[in-house]
């Protein structure tokens, strides 16, 4: 795929829940689970999005949040969108694994879960109508903050239960950074390797500008998937991120700025 954005047709749009749509794009991208692309809306902006379906068509699952995703939600099948990538390292699949997805965090994890169909999958959301991919993963362990579907509670509680059973050796996670931080801490306690897919504001997407830096690492290139050995040294993991100006702020301020 070209390093410059290429305009590709949206072949299909599916509504995953009231806030989330999946866009299927007329382009085949050779990607690993966890890799991402940069989507371009001419004259609007360009943003990173994980690949949620890898194949003849490329699927991107998007939650409506701010200006860019609103504009995406206004697109119809047959219209075109710019795309470049794939970027980032992606997940390394391993046996005896547990996948912990928070909200839209299932997007980059979904292609991994399909590859490792004997792994444990935990999908958590705030409430029932936030859930996605429940049909794609009928064996998933669903958990909601309010118990409107699946178990009531947090993904981290369910993870601890599985870890206590003893045969899990690797944990994969993506979701709100606070959740991922907790998942990591649990893994550390149990001496288990963790792979977390981080999210930072991006510009280049290929490791040049430094905008997406966490602890001396560019999330776009050495990440987005970061392993325990690096997470351990990243003081900013779960605590700080950079605004568009490059200003480093507490993760809560960053999240507010992003209207998540």
């Amino acid at each position, binding site marked *: 795929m070209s*390093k410059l954005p290429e305009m590709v047709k949206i072949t299909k749009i599916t509504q995953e829940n009231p806030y989330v749509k999946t866009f299927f794009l007329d382009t085949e991208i050779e990607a690993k689970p966890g890799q991402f692309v940069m989507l371009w809306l001419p004259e609007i902006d*360009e943003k990173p999005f994980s690949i949620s379906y890898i194949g003849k068509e490329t699927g991107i699952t998007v939650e409506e949040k701010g200006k860019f995703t609103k504009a995406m939600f206004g697109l119809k099948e047959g219209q075109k969108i710019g795309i470049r990538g794939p970027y980032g390292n992606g997940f390394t699949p391993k046996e005896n694994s547990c996948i912990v997805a928070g909200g839209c965090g299932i997007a980059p994890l979904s292609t991994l879960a399909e590859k490792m169909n004997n792994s444990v999958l935990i999908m958590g959301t705030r409430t029932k109508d936030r859930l996605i991919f429940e049909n794609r993963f009928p064996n998933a362990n669903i958990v909601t903050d309010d118990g409107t579907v699946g178990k009531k509670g947090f993904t981290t509680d369910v993870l601890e239960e599985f870890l206590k059973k003893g045969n899990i050796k690797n944990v994969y996670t993506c979701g709100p950074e606070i959740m991922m931080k907790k998942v990591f801490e649990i893994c550390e306690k149990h001496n288990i390797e963790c792979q977390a897919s981080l999210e930072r504001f991006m*510009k280049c997407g290929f*490791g*040049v500008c430094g905008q997406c830096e966490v602890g001396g690492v560019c999330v776009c290139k050495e990440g987005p998937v970061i392993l325990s050995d690096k997470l351990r040294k990243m003081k900013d993991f779960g605590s700080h991120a950079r605004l*568009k100006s*490059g200003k480093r702020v507490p993760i809560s301020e960053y999240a507010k700025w992003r209207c998540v």
Partner: protein
Amino acid sequence: MNLETNLCGIKLKNPTILASGILGVSKSLLKNVIENGAGAVTIKSISYEPRDGHKNPTILEFDSGMINAVGYSNPGLHGALDEFTDLKDLNAPVFASVIGKEPEDFTKVIEGLGNLDFSAIEIPLSCPHTPGFGTLAGQDSPEKTLEITKAVVKAAKVPVFVKLSPNTKNIGEVAMAAEKGGASGITAVNTLGPGMIINIEAAKPVMGFKIGGLSGPAIKPIAVRCVYDVYGSVKIPIIGVGGITTGKDAIEMVMAGATAIGIGSGVNYRGNDVFTKICNEMKDWIEKNNYNSLEEIRGIVHE
């Protein structure tokens, strides 16, 4: 064979320097780059007020180089003061890059940064894609260059490098103005252009700011000619920047007259360890060609 370099009194373990705007947003990334072999590092340019910069796409790769219009996004003086503490901990000199519209803008930042451990201050008067700054504001004329350089040199406690534009008609004259203003060195060059890339399917320019500055391999011959011209015009040392991705490219810059070598886009083409790679390639080449030092070949094409 060692590559130790004296850049107006600043000791570098080798002549490779991280160019401003690449990776230089945090102390920990600077550390990463130093561990990857850079002789010195330059931070991303800092203005007094924070700036969000242009909207994306801001940085793209095309067939023969890179194009960018970041628009000087930066956390401002106060962000920089939080970020770049205790630079002495790092194993190589760190250069500040400071931007402004008027001379006072520069000096406010420089005075603000005064207590941090920067070994030099670079002032780019040469950005081709940010209104109010660089070539779009005429900062690359000999007159403006002299005026801003004088003010900056007066405010700075460390050597000042003036970063020039390859788009300037007579770069030698601008370099002379910088030298006259008291600059300790010249950085040549900033990005070329601006250029424009149109996505024809979208019928729109692809950069968020429509235009952007070119860097990488496409601009190397022009950067080399600029260094050649500057070397012929001033006595102060030159940091040669533009399209350097290999040890041979670096040797070419030295032969044109550079004392040190800035590397930006090279990070994209060869990874963060481009610095180590280039240094090893330079050493190999120098030994194979029976030279003993970089001094021997500096400016040799002027003979």
